[in-house]
Each structure stands twice: as C-alpha cells, then as structure tokens.
C-alpha cells in the first residue's frame, strides 16, 4: 500500500516534470532569438524521464534488496545472542520473525525474544521505507530542478529522449530472451539431477515407461522405469495422424480461398475458419473423448476391429481439425502475397489456373507454407489437453492408431499432478521429458528453416 502511494507520488512528479519542462520550452521559444533544437514535447519528456526513471530504479532496487538486508540484521542479532544456532534453525526463526511482523502464522508460540526481534524487524522496515520514500522523492525533485535549468535552445532533448526510449525497447526485448534462457537452464539443472538417478541411455532408449516409484522405503510400489521411447512414439503417432488430417485439408482450403473463392466468400469464410482456432482445447478434448472416440469404437466393432475407447486415432483426428486454421489461414496469406505480376506472367504463357497454382504460386509461397506447417506441428507436439482426454495414459509402444497411447506432454502432466517430492526420480523425470521435447522441436525447427532457406524462391 505504502509503496503504491510512493509510486503515485513519483508518477505525479513525472507528469509535473512534463508540464513544467514543456512550459519552460514554450517560454524559451517565445523569448529566445535562437530556435529550439527539438520540438516542444521533447523538452517535457526530457524532464519527465529525469523525474521518473532514476527514482523508479532506486525504488525497485530498494524493494528487491531491502528485505534481505532486514533479514540479515535479524540473523546477526540472533547469532550474537545464540552462537550455536544451525543455519536451518536460523532460517526457520527468521521466517517466524517475518511472519509475526506481518501478522502471519507461526510455527511456534511467540516468546519474548521473538516478539522483540519482530518489533525490531518491523521498525527497521518502517524506517527503511521512509528512507526510501525520502530518497526517491528528493532525487525526483532534484532531477526536476536540474533538468529544468538545463533546458535551453541548444539542449538536444530529442536525441536524449530517443536514446532512453531505445534503451527501454532493448530491455524489453532482453526480457523475452532472458526468460527463455532461464527456463532452459532450470530445465537443464533438474534434468541433470534426474540423470544422477536414472542412467541417460536408459531414459533415451528404454522402451518401458512406468514411473511409479516407492515414496518411502516401507512402501510397496513399482521400482520405476523411465524409458522415454513409448512416449515419443505416442507423440509422433498422434502428431502424424494430426498432420495427415490437417495438411491436406488446410492446404486445399487455403488454395481454394486464395485462388478460387470470390471476395465475398473469402471475407466470410476466413474469419469463421479462424474461429476454429479460438475454441479452447478442453472443448476439443471432450469432443474427442465423448463424441469422436465412441464413434470410432462403434464403427470399429461393426467392421470387426477392436478399437480402444481411448485411441490415438480419435485424439489425432480432432487435433488435426484444431490445427486446420493454422495451416489454412497462414498459407492463404502467403499465397495471397505472391505478386499478381507472377500470375499474369504465367497466364500470359498460356498456363491454366491450376498450372499457375502448382507451378508458380505454391513454389513461390513454399517457405511460408512450410512455416505454417511447422508452426502447426509444434502446436500438435505440444498439445496436451486433447490427448489427456482422448488418447489415454497407457504408455503402449505401438504403431496401431486404434490403441491407446500416451504422449510426452500428458506424462509430464500426470507426473506433476498431486503431491510431489522434488528429489524423486518420478518428479524429476518431468523436467527431463520437457527438455527432450524442447530439444526435439528445436532441432525440427532448425532443420526445416535450413530446408526452406535452401529451396526458397525469392520474389520481390
């Protein structure tokens, strides 16, 4: 709450800085015979940035480091009074102090020492908060006055403002990159812990997946076997079925919409098709589990085939339907962006419409089409909900689409649902699977990008 008040105070100063800075520039432009270097709003922004940014950075830094400093203070006090305390006890005690100070639940009855420590702690926090507020506002005011003073016709306000803005943009893009890197590293570390317990090659080439391990030594349970092959086989089987459905349907509908359909039909059909992409995957999931899978099972019995009620076929087909708009909409866009001049050239050579499409438009649009297919494919590989509901959990190593299979993502879900302990191979297996899945999709994307780059037909 208090931080929020401070934040609004800084915001107010920033707005004030903008108004005053611009006002000063207006006054200067009226009196000075020298023309201003930048346009008026830039002087306002210049002042505003000086008022707001450094104080915000101070505030952010303070809020990150201050609790740690406070805890360190409590800890040093404690060590002074009780030299024999172990690190575990210490951290528990500090936890209690913090909880008592903020009115949370304690792990013990509060005694006098704890109460006084908590008082010290909250006092320190309060002092530090006021110190932060004073420093931030003082800095902001100082910046306001100095930057107002600096405003003169020769000040290159626009260049400075643009520099700051470009730095902000750079930081924004870094956030995305750093997040990816962070996720990958957290996956890697947990995976390394997993491979301490389960040999690497058993995981990569094992054909049996049964992750149930005994949690306690006296428990009866599976010894656990972590062969990832059945999971990847299941993923590939479902992805394959999905692409078999989605690629032809998606491509043909894209060709129809971009080359044959009238403008009116296209304007109507394209958004409707894109609605397909907006349906939540859970809905597809129960559509697959409750409608499609029973239908397949019953038609199977009619034909004398035994179809499992949770089958790879049902999950793959429904997933294929879900993926259609990705392929059709993106391919439609790239085919539409093939220049009319190329179509004209082909028609003028006496080519028919279908010859033009197969020999000129599709080759020219191929990189985009492959991109669309790839995007759809990584969607299919990563898709979880439909498979959980419609394909089952049994880790069968089979190529028969009528049987139940399971996928990598489904197993990650089941491994992490419920109570977990983070030093069992079962839980850590989820991270290993995640990393492997990540590597597989990455390799696939890289290979496909290279293929596309090699065979692309450039047009301008």
């Amino acid at each position, binding site marked *: 709450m208090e931080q929020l008040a401070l934040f609004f105070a800084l915001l107010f100063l920033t707005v004030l800085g903008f108004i005053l800075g611009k006002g000063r520039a207006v006054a200067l432009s009226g009196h000075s015979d020298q023309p201003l270097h930048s346009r008026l709003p830039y002087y306002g922004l210049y002042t505003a940035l000086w008022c707001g940014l450094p104080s915000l950075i101070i505030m952010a830094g303070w809020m990150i480091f201050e609790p740690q400093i406070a805890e360190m203070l409590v800890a040093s006090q404690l060590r002074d009074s009780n030299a024999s305390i172990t690190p575990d006890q210490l951290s528990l005690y500090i936890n209690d102090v913090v909880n008592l100070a903020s009115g949370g639940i304690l792990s013990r009855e509060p005694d006098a020492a704890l109460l006084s420590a908590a008082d010290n702690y909250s006092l320190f926090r309060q002092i530090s908060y006021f110190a932060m507020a004073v420093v931030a506002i003082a800095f902001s005011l100082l910046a306001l006055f100095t930057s107002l003073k600096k405003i003169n016709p020769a000040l290159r306000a626009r260049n400075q403002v643009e520099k700051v803005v470009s730095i902000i943009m750079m930081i924004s893009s870094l956030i995305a990159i750093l997040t990816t890197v962070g996720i990958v590293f957290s996956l890697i570390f947990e995976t390394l812990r997993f491979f301490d317990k389960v040999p690497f090659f058993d995981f990569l080439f094992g054909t049996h997946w049964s992750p149930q391990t005994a949690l306690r030594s006296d428990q009866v349970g599976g010894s656990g076997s972590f062969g990832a092959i059945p999971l990847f086989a299941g993923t590939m089987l479902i992805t394959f079925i999905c692409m078999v459905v989605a690629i032809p349907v998606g491509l043909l509908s894209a060709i129809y919409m971009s080359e044959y359909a009238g403008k009116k039909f296209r304007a109507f059909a394209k958004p409707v098709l894109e609605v397909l992409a907006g349906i939540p995957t859970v809905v597809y999931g129960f559509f697959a589990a409750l409608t499609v899978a029973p239908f397949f099972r019953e038609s199977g019995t009619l034909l004398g085939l035994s179809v499992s009620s949770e089958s790879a076929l049902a999950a793959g087909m429904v997933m294929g339907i879900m993926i259609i708009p990705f392929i059709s909409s993106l391919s439609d866009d790239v085919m539409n962006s093939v220049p009319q001049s*190329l179509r004209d050239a082909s028609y003028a050579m006496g080519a028919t419409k279908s010859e033009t499409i197969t020999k000129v438009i599709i080759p020219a649009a191929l990189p985009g089409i492959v991109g669309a297919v790839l995007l759809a494919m990584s969607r299919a590989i990563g898709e979880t909900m439909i498979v959980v509901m419609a394909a089952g959990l049994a880790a069968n190593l089979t190529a028969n689409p009528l049987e139940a299979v399971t996928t990598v993502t489904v197993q990650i879900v089941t491994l992490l649902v419920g109570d977990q302990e983070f030093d069992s191979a079962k839980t850590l297996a989820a991270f290993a699977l995640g990393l492997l899945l990540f590597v597989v999709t990455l390799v696939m994307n890289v290979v496909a990008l290279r293929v596309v780059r090699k065979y692309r*037909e450039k047009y301008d």
Partner: protein
Amino acid sequence: MSYAMDMQNYTTQSETATSEPKIMARDVNVFYGPSQALKSIQLDIGANEVTSLIGPSGCGKSTFLRCLNRMNDVIENCTVEGRISLDGVDLYNSGLDPVLLRARVGMVFQKPNPFPKSIFDNIAYGPRLHGTVSNKDELDERVEKSLRRAGLWDEVKDRLDKPGTGLSGGQQQRLCIARAIAINPEVILMDEPCSALDPIATAKIEELIDELRERFTIVIVTHSMQQAARVSQKTAFFHLGELVEVGETDRLFTSPQDDRTQGYITGRFG
C-alpha cells in the same frame, strides 16, 4: 502530296480485309463495370511488323493490348464487346480457349516479372507447360535458342541455374522476352516493356524488337513517342478510349491528321 498518299493507304488498310492483317479489331467496346474504357475501336495489325500504341495515361491502350490475348478475362467485371480476330478466327465468340490463344500470343509486361526460379526454368516454363519439347536435349536447345534470340545467351550461359530474379532489370526484361518467344508465339504483345529500364537497357530491347519483327508480329504499348518512332512501322494514337488516328509511323509523326494527335505529339497534353 505524301499526305494524300498516306491518307489513301490508311483508308485502304482499314476498310478492305484483302491484305490479310494478322489481327483485326472491329467495333471493340470494353467496359470495367459501368465505365467504358474503349469505344468502338477499329484496328488492323499487319503480320511481321511492329505496331505501337501511344496515347496519354488512361487512354485505353493497355486495355486494348490485353484484349488481344484475353488477359482481361482475369480482371473481374471487365466485359469485351465487338469482334477481334486472329488469322480470321474470332477470339471471343468462337469458343476459342484463352489458354490456347495465349500460347499463340505471348506477352511481355511493364515491370520485368521473371518467375522466382532459375534462368533455365524460366525459359523452360512454357515449353514444359505445352509439351512442345519431347526430351531434355530438345528443351536445352529451345532454351538456348530463345536466350540467343533475346540477346541474353552470352550474358547468362554460365549461370542458367541461378535465379532469374538475380539479373539486372534490363536482363530480366530480356529474360521475359526470351520466355515469351520460347513457346514460338505468332504475336508478341509488349506493355511498356522499357518503362522500368535505363536508357542503355532500353536501347538493347529496342534493337531486339527490331530483330524479332522478322519472325513475330509485335504490338507494343509505349509512353515514349521517340520509342514508337524508332521501333514501329505503324502507330495508333489512343485518346480517352477512342482510337483517334492510325497510320504509318513516319506519316503519323510528321503530318498527323487529327488535332488531338497533333497536340499530343507536339507535347501540348499527355
């Protein structure tokens, strides 16, 4: 005196069909939706000569050109009335397949538009499409011949597998001409083929047009009156959808009969 003689030529050519023009257009009206782009055009195009169509922008000369290989079919709500015939066969009303027509009437566009394929595949596109070559050797031969005729062979013979889009603008346009002649058309239509090119590339193309005249009937739309004067034997002047005047190029530029032609070629408008 020469004026009267030309006058006589002009009337005989447009009124008698005995001299067997390659293309005859009679009462051609073209509409884009409700607006009329061409008004009752009468024009004969002689075999093995270059006919240039000139006139200010929007006068309908490109529209007329695109009627000759039915490229207007591609444009929505474009309707063509009247009679255009190639060697006496009606293009629009005799059930002629536009695809077959375009194999006989090639076209070169304003902006060079090579396919994003290799130079070889660009030229081979037409022959492969129409199955006019039976084996790889014949195809190689056809590609070489077309490139030689377009004066491009020496420049590209070592890089036939490189993309056609990597050539310079002038080379690309000659590649498009080579592509058009690879299917052995009878007529080549050119829609301002030099407007995107520099003077040297333009000179090369004009030279090429003059050579191609021996084998092909050429109709060229151009904005440049100098170009029309340099390359064509006959010139037709279009204005606001009407064919104002047509005649021998020399005659039309030296002694135009119509005030509008006079105005255009002396630069009073356009």
